[in-house]
């Protein structure tokens, strides 16, 4: 059975690019338009990996990670940040919030798939 990835980003074009790349590699993708939407979708179904942007309306990526880590079933789910942010300060905050990795945009689809495979197989 295909593994499911929750892709959270307020940019519809970016979500499309992520979904296109991951689906081509055989993953199922659930899309969410911001952190709040991502949290709601994560509650509705358990996913194998969360890929989230940082700067989004309603709820940002770091807040989403902290909220997810408080949910049963999401303490150990891999969460990767996919963001334009590249400062060490933000990466440290992401790590402290519970992120398992940091990918700086723009992403290369092949590289994204390699990372996802490394994390969830």
């Amino acid at each position, binding site marked *: 059975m295909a593994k499911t990835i929750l892709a959270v980003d307020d940019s519809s074009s970016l979500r499309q690019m992520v979904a296109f790349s991951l689906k081509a590699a055989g993953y199922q993708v659930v899309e969410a338009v911001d952190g709040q939407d991502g949290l709601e979708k994560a509650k509705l179904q358990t996913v194998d990996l969360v890929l989230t942007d940082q*700067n989004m309306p309603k709820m940002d990526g770091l807040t989403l990670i902290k909220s997810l880590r408080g949910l049963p079933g999401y303490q150990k789910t891999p969460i990767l940040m996919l963001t*334009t942010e590249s400062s060490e300060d933000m990466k440290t905050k992401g790590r402290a919030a519970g992120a398992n*990795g940091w990918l*700086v945009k*723009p992403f*290369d*689809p092949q*590289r994204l798939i390699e*990372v996802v495979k490394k994390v969830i197989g």
Partner: protein
Amino acid sequence: MTTRKKILGSHVKRLLSGVSDHGRRHLSEVETDLVQTTLLLEEAVEKLTSSFMAIHHVVDSRQEAINRLLAGQAPTAEESACLTGMSGEIAGHVNAAVTSMQFQDMTSQLLDRTLRRVTGLRDFLTTLSEHGDGILPESDGDEIVERLGKVSMALAIQSLELRSMLRKSVEQRHLESGDVELF
């Protein structure tokens, strides 16, 4: 010069210098963001055009090979290998296009920041005008000094709020794939 005039002069100077510093700082940032947006857009157009042309070329070549097969010609070993490799070639160009298409995410963040900065500057000038309206020709020196003090304070607060709200989240100047770090 009387002390009162000196105080008034000092308040006017502080206000003018505050408005000038604030305006210049934000307009410099607007300029930087717009230059960065232009660079990203130019690179995106260049790379997407290149990917489009490359995909078009491979698809054309593949169609020619298919046409030869349909005409009953048996493919040579070289043609077979070439046909097999075409899918990978197309995938490589599509991947490059996917990376370039992410310009929209970055430029929209930069433009949003510019827009908020411009709106903030307009609010700043509105505050200046509103406080200025309270200064009448018949106002005495003390009243003018008080009003100038208030407007300087209001503008300083607005300037701080605008700066704190506009942290820069996009530093990219090229559409090269970014770093990956697993914790």
